[in-house]
């Protein structure tokens, strides 16, 4: 998008880049956050669900009589009735045979799937009644392993879709075979990212209230989901303007997963069916086992062709993703990495095969990074193997492969231009921050004494901006090329500024982001600017805060609206001064006649005129001061080619992590000695928010690397449901992290800002495993999976 004015220069900045207390924080420390579970309405009823005990079974009979007889129960909904009344939830890939609904119908396809919903005056009573629902099941063979599922004779996950392969495509960009033939060396590796997710502390919560008087469904939900209102309306069979999703709900963390379509549709259906507002707050077991919020579960086979200097010429990557039972949006997580398929490296050609299979397990959902975290894991461990093969230091090999700083915009083989980057400098900053020389001495001294110490490095290309064109890439029926974000700004008659955004926030500080940018644009203290969250009827088009996109797209939307207003205000002032607009200019918050600065109109006066003094306005001008701007994702708007060449996210952030660990020989336990990184997300708007995002992503990455796994047994039962079994890192497991910033501005955004939020999670598992492998190297053992447990380590040391 070409802006009317050049980006705001660095030297002039008053607020962007400066420390500022995030405005959201105040309400949270006072305990005044308003989460979906806090919403209460008259006649509110509560939902509990009956879940399937089997990985795969026919549902022969459902008897709800005993449940209905429990005092306080308003009603019960079975899958059969809900499926008759609603349309299936959206599957983004082309699998109409797999019908996904909030409740199972004739078959249940995973243990934990929701089968019946009970509505009662209290949640405890709903649970009492749920226990009395009798469901008769007939077990059917299940398939649980993705490599088994891909075989033609595997038991089908869904009877209606006999093959478990729901997506398979091979892309070839560049001269892969030629580059492989010409390169003197090649190597192969297999990498396994076991199933985990970002598991927020708040489970999914939704309140749905159908108002028969207004034919309007009000929804409060803990969501982070594009087109949530659209998908609710579509499934419930009501017009989109009969759904009002309230985005002024605080969301207790999402990191991708709070999609909640089935929860929302279920609650909406129940509210319409029973005529009362309905609240459904997943309990932890419902969430872990049946919330359809699992994360990446991937097998990578990577082969690279490289020369004697360790420069990688070509790469073949095959990725197999175990979606669980209902693919939903999740297979697209093999599509987004296409926009960063070579990472930060000058790999010239790529063959990429993406395969999605369904199995009789809980479904995957979008997770932080949308597939880039496991992909980067495979790329970075591959680079370490290349370094080992040619006997060149791992840091040096990366430097040799980095896209050089003068090559931007750099178009990668699959079609995405990288906007800007300075990878070598950032790696250098990470090395300095880590004190690499000292770390290597520490490692070597320990090794001499038999200690298992290792130092690892990983870099990461973090795409930002959320051009979700992978929807079309993976399914040509998804013809959407518009991924917008809107902002409305108003200046009221007293001159105070308010802005409205159309998203719910889950800790990313959007109110702070927008008020900082508007403050910069208007020259007004950001704390005096109020930012509110619209609902889906009042709000402007939005693609939701996914994909590290809000600073990029919402930031420019806010600025776009601000510029429209400043332009209007200047014309009002000029008219008041009897001058032409070109003869006037802004000076802080006042408009002055350039030739005679004493002639001026104040901000307050402009606002007064705009709202109340129509006789002083330029003829034909609309009264008031309000502007909207809907920003299309920068660089977006084109469909992929038939060969899958596609222009994906506009901005590329970058980080380099250096990690030192020590393994306890007796127990296999891994302890951090040091964690350092350098990070580049272009222009930083709020330093504390950026730092928080990176550190939080690193914690998620440590969880994925060392602790977290959704583990199933051979019968398809989820063993890790309770938080005593699904282990998330605490203050003890996340080390102190040293971080330095570098800013390589994007040429595409108003302030040069790029995205932040996913990079930590995308980088950390690779860096940690790299360090573990360095510690194990003297013994020749190597790890290529996550999570790495002490049991794994001791088995390798035995």
């Amino acid at each position, binding site marked *: 998008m070409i802006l009317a004015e050049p980006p705001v220069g660095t030297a002039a900045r008053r607020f962007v880049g400066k420390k500022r207390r995030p405005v959201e924080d105040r309400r949270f420390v006072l305990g005044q956050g308003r989460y979906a579970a806090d919403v209460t309405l008259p006649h509110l009823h509560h939902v509990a669900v009956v879940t399937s005990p089997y990985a795969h079974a026919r549902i022969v009979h459902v008897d709800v009589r005993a449940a209905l007889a429990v005092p306080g129960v308003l009603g019960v909904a079975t899958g059969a009735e809900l499926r008759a009344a609603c349309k299936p939830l959206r599957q983004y890939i082309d699998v109409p045979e797999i019908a996904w609904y909030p409740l199972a119908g004739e078959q249940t396809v995973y243990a934990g799937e929701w089968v019946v919903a009970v509505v009662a005056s209290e*949640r*405890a009573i709903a*649970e*009492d009644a749920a*226990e009395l629902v009798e469901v008769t099941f007939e077990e059917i063979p299940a398939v649980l392993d993705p490599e088994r599922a891909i075989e033609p004779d595997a038991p089908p996950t869904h009877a209606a879709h006999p093959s478990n392969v729901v997506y398979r495509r091979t892309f070839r960009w560049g001269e892969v075979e030629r580059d492989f033939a010409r390169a003197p060396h090649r190597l192969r590796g297999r990498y396994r990212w076991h199933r985990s997710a970002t598991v927020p502390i708040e489970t999914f919560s939704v309140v749905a209230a159908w108002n028969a008087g207004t034919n309007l469904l009000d929804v409060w939900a803990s969501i982070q989901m594009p087109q949530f209102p659209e998908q609710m309306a579509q499934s419930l069979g009501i017009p989109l303007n009969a759904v009002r999703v309230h985005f002024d709900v605080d969301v207790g963390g999402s990191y991708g997963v709070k999609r909640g379509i089935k929860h929302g549709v279920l609650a909406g259906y129940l509210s319409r069916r029973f005529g009362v507002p309905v609240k459904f707050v997943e*309990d*932890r*077991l419902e969430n872990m086992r049946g919330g359809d919020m699992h994360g990446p579960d991937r097998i990578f086979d990577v082969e690279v062709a490289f020369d004697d200097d360790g420069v990688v010429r070509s790469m073949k990557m095959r990725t197999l993703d175990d979606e669980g039972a209902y693919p939903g949006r999740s297979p697209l997580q093999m599509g987004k990495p296409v926009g960063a398929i070579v990472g930060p490296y000058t790999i010239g050609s790529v063959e990429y095969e993406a395969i999605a299979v369904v199995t009789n397990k809980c479904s995957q959902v979008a997770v932080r990074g949308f597939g880039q975290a496991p992909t980067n894991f495979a790329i970075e461990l591959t680079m370490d193997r290349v370094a080992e093969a040619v006997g060149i230091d791992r840091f040096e090999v990366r430097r040799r492969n980095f896209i050089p700083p003068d090559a931007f915009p750099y178009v990668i083989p699959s079609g995405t231009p990288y906007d800007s980057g300075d990878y070598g400098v950032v790696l250098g900053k990470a090395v300095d921050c880590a004190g690499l020389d000292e770390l290597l001495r520490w490692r070597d001294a320990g090794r001499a004494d038999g200690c298992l110490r290792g130092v690892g490095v990983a870099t990461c290309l973090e795409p930002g901006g959320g051009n979700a064109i992978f929807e079309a890439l993976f399914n040509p029926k998804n013809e959407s090329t518009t991924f917008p974000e809107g902002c409305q700004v108003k200046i009221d008659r007293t001159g105070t500024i308010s802005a409205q955004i159309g998203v719910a926030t889950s800790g990313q500080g959007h109110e702070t982001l927008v008020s900082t940018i508007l403050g910069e644009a208007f020259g007004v203290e950001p704390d005096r600017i109020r930012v509110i969250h619209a609902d889906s009827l009042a709000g402007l088009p939005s693609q939701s805060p996914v994909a590290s996109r809000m600073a990029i797209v919402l930031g420019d939307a806010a600025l776009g609206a601000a510029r429209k207003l400043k332009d209007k205000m200047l014309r009002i002032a000029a008219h008041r001064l009897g001058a032409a607009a070109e003869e006037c200019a802004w000076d802080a918050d006042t408009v002055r006649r350039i030739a005679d600065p004493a002639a001026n109109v104040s901000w307050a006066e402009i606002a007064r005129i705009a709202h109340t003094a129509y006789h002083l306005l330029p003829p034909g001008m609309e009264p008031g001061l309000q502007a909207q701007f809907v920003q299309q994702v920068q660089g977006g708007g084109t469909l992929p080619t038939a060969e899958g060449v596609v222009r994906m996210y506009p901005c590329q952030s970058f980080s380099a992590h250096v990690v030192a660990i020590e393994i306890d020989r*007796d*127990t*296999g*336990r891994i302890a951090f000695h040091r964690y350092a990184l350098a990070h580049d997300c272009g222009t930083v708007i709020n330093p504390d928010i950026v730092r928080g995002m990176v550190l939080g992503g690193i914690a998620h990455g440590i969880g994925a690397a060392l*602790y977290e796994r959704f*583990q199933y047994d051979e019968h398809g039962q989820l*063993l*890790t449901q*309770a938080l*005593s*079994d699904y*282990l998330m*890192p*605490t203050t*003890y*497991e996340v080390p102190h992290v040293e971080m330095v910033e570098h800013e390589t501005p994007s040429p595409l955004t108003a302030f040069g800002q790029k995205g932040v939020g996913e990079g930590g999670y995308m980088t950390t598992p690779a860096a940690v495993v790299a360090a573990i492998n360095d510690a194990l190297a003297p013994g020749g053992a190597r790890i290529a999976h996550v999570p790495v*447990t*002490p*049991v794994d380590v*001791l*088995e390798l040391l*035995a």
Partner: protein
Amino acid sequence: MKPVDFDYVRPHSLAAALAALAGANGEAKVIAGGQSLGPLLNMRLVRPALLVDVNALPGFDAIEEREQWVRVGATVRQRDAERSELVARRLPLLRDALPFVGHAHTRNRGTVVGSVVHADPTAEIPLVAVCLDAVVEIAGPRGAREAPVADFYQGYLATDLAADELVVGVRFGAHPPAAGAVRVTGFAEMARREGDFAIVAAAVQLDVERESRRVREARLGLAGVGGAPVRLRASEAALCAGRDGASAFADAVAAAGPAIDPDGDLHATAAYRRTIAGPLLARALRLAWARL
């Protein structure tokens, strides 16, 4: 996750507590700290008709010492035991183990005796109880009785406590070391995260002659290696037989192997537990010895 509907009493006398238990025909559960029972209730894994809250029973929150033992009443909080000067002086092994038990906030509410009764074989307090030859004091409709803790434990989460009985206290052995000997303790644990239940834990208490460094009495135990905490008698004998305790460490550790029969679970294989048991025991021995 809400519990089943249950009724609740908080009696103010032992007789009333026993009457409530008896009247519930086996459908009552005792709640003290609730840190183990609460999750089980909320997950509906335990479904009592009646909850008998013992937190108001008078005098049950006392720690008393005698020459041969220290008695911890049923409602003594783990945090109070952790801060108790008496415990530090007379039950150093318990003092060593308590920081490993859950987190500070669970110790604010959880009780020492409750952990003994819950009988999780990976828990730290039962391990200490077994090492110190604790005696469980039980009240019931058939009268008061006592059970040595080794007899009390009957397998994973199982004890010989009847549904109408109540543990009123636990006596931990605390006889003074022999003349000329000093008592040292060590505790080592491997858990997946700090504060989690142990995969394996090792507890060591040694009474060591100051001059000769001979071990006069040894109490060694492991948790997480069977259905109940395991007392390592052969290892203890090896330590006491050695001229100087430190030289017998290897023998003591080797003797532990045949004494254990660990199971595998989600968090660790049986082989892993077997592999780390020896090194953890050695670590606890070294920690204790370093305090001489």
